[in-house]
């Protein structure tokens, strides 16, 4: 009996000691900018900013952005995610990189110095944004 008790305790200890393996970070999907550091909404001061990101599984991305008034602008390029370093290049060769993380299902992108932190919520890019973007 003592022998079984020892085994049971050992098993319980082993189970308790097992750390849950973290899920790998993924950014695939469609996102909408919801917050910029030091502000509480995407309306910064008097200017409205509307940014949609789309990271596709094939390693390409789309950005649809409207800064202030005007028509949405469409940018494309490629990206890679190495651990939590999200980096990419626009189709014109301009490079960018961020530290990526997930918080409550939101995608948080911080620049390497951590001075700007942008939060994106999961969203579906509206069809009219896709259709009218240039």
């Amino acid at each position, binding site marked *: 009996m003592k022998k079984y008790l020892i085994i049971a305790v050992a098993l319980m200890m082993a189970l308790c000691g097992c750390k849950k393996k973290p899920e790998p970070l993924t950014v695939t999907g469609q996102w909408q900018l919801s917050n910029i550091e030091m502000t509480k909404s995407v309306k*910064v001061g008097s200017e409205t900013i509307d940014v949609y990101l789309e990271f596709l599984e094939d390693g390409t991305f789309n950005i649809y952005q409207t800064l202030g008034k005007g028509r949405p602008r469409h940018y494309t390029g490629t990206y890679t995610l190495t651990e939590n370093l999200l980096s990419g290049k626009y189709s014109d060769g301009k490079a960018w990189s961020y530290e990526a993380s997930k918080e409550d299902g939101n995608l948080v992108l911080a620049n390497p110095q951590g001075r700007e932190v942008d939060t994106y919520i999961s969203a579906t890019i509206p069809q009219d944004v896709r259709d009218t973007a*240039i």
Partner: protein
Amino acid sequence: MKKSFLVFPLAACLALSCNEALREDQLLSDDLRTAKTKTVKLGDEYDRGSFLVKFASVPDDAMIGSLMVEGVESVERLFTSIPGKEDLEARFGLDRWYEVKVAEGTRVDDMIRQSALVEAVSVVEYNCLAQKDVTGDTYYAAPDTKASTGAFNDPYLSDQWHYRNGGGTVYGTGSVKGGDINVYDVWNTLGVCGDPDIIVAIVDEGVKYTHPDLAANMWINKNEIPNNGIDDDNNGYVDDVYGYNFVNGTNQISWDKNGDTGHGTHTGGTVAAVNNNGIGVCGVAGGSGKGDGCRLMSCQIFSGNGGGTTSVIARAVKYAGDNGASIISCSFGTPSAIPTDNAYMAGNSAEIDAIHYFEACQNNPVLNGGIAIFSSGNENHPYAHYPGAFVDIISVSAIAADMLPTNYTDYGPGCNIAAPGGEMGLAGTFKSMVLSTVPRELEEMTVDNTLGNADYGYMQGTSMACPHVSGVVALGLSYAKKLGKKFDRDEFKQLILSSTNDIDQKIAVTKEKTYQNCPIAGTNKYYKAHAALPMAPYYHQMGTGAIDAWQLMMQIEGIPTLVAKLDKVEYIDLSPYFGTSSVSLTYLSVDVPQETVESLGLQSIKASNTQKYTAVPEEGYAYVQYGRLYMHPTKVGSGKITIHVVGGGDHLGGGNNPTGGMELVQEVSVISREIKSTNGGWL
């Protein structure tokens, strides 16, 4: 000895005669040189029966009489003078231009040379022929049996990809979503569709003013009683109700003569075909169906196979300015390589004098003058043709539904902006061309086309690109009028040229574009595909990009948003607001509201002044120097900054001040971010 005596006089005679011949040659050469320096010839083709003369001063009868030599039939003043506008006419020398008609059998070149030797004459100009900038034929559109789609209920609107391009292949291989003039949101969101007080002169073939999709938007000269044979409004033209036929010198505007192509009716329809009337097509500034479209004035300079001379064009352009037009839409040019503006201006051509006169005519409450818009030309030359190429005239090149240059468009120096001109062969149908109104009377257009006798048709050319820009500018003036805004004419031109979408990015990644055969409906014939077109020559050669109506409205309303980088002294180029002259303008002050200081976390900065471009102010939260706005944001945020500038001169005029400029106030909107992509992307 005898021989010597004989030889000497013979040699002397020979020498004398040689000297005389030499002197005569020299004299002739001097005359030729004089004649040449006074003579202007803008094109290779010219009228053999007339030429133009500009006197050095307003001529008296004796000076005019000095031109009445054998072979000359008449000498008459080129421009009709308008009571009350004499000073403006004199300012541009229009009171000194005369048209000389030569008798049959007389060589006009001889008369030109002879007239150039008259001391009182400063310029003699060949009456050159311009040509319409349309390529290929006109093709009738299929009957409009489709359901209404798009912003308005006009059934053909869905085929006008040039207003809203949804991509796909119907309008051409590689069609680009948004490869259009972006006008839908201007109509729908802003509710800006036109204004009857904004008149666009179609300087072209006659506009079919009875066309069911144009009639309601035709300009009507209310001061003229039709068909009473009297010049009621005293503007020099009898019974001019919808405009004037300058080719034949009558009020009978025509569009159905042998040789007509429907060109004027097509370009007019693009500017202001009536919108939301349940039939046909839409025009860029054609209103919302409530009688609120911009108005079309027909200034006819081509008729059948005639017209297009410098004298006809010059008269038509002056008429537009005298009778209320804010814009001249000119889809023509002179296909000749004139290398510089000075060559074009040599001695002041009657044509450019008339255009400058038009530009000085204020016919709306928004601008202090008119806007001249020309096509760049269809010769596929690496430069625009004149008059469009002239430095202060907007010249429009053509792109297709793929947002790439077309195989006919002129490009390079002198081409200021691009707009949809259509391109046959990009699709397997004519739908890749531009759809607009045409006169149904032109039977020859039905050849090889079973869809004939309709009121709508497809055409392609920089001729079709030009009226898109004219329409967008007409919308811009309509919106500015609605907002009660006023602009300097040159400032407004800068707004137009900076309201564009990028073309170069796609040109850069496209090696060449290819074409397909285009079958002709109802026949077994087809138009053979154009050879593949390399794109490299067009890179950075299509002006400032493709016109965007929405962007122009935004610029009129306020300003686009700019991004500044955080934690560094950042500058923003002000040329989008003040043009390339922003560097040398005199700045009065820069106002930074406290809320902007707080939002952007602006730090006080001090300029390192130079003698030539003094910073204004020398220190503060923002200053302007070298045409740039400097600031140092430390927080992510946004705000507005107001800049005060002198427009015209280096100081303000008024009161006891010496003559000076007026104050311009420009609001600049800025967002600061840690990250600033040089291409404008958010990441």
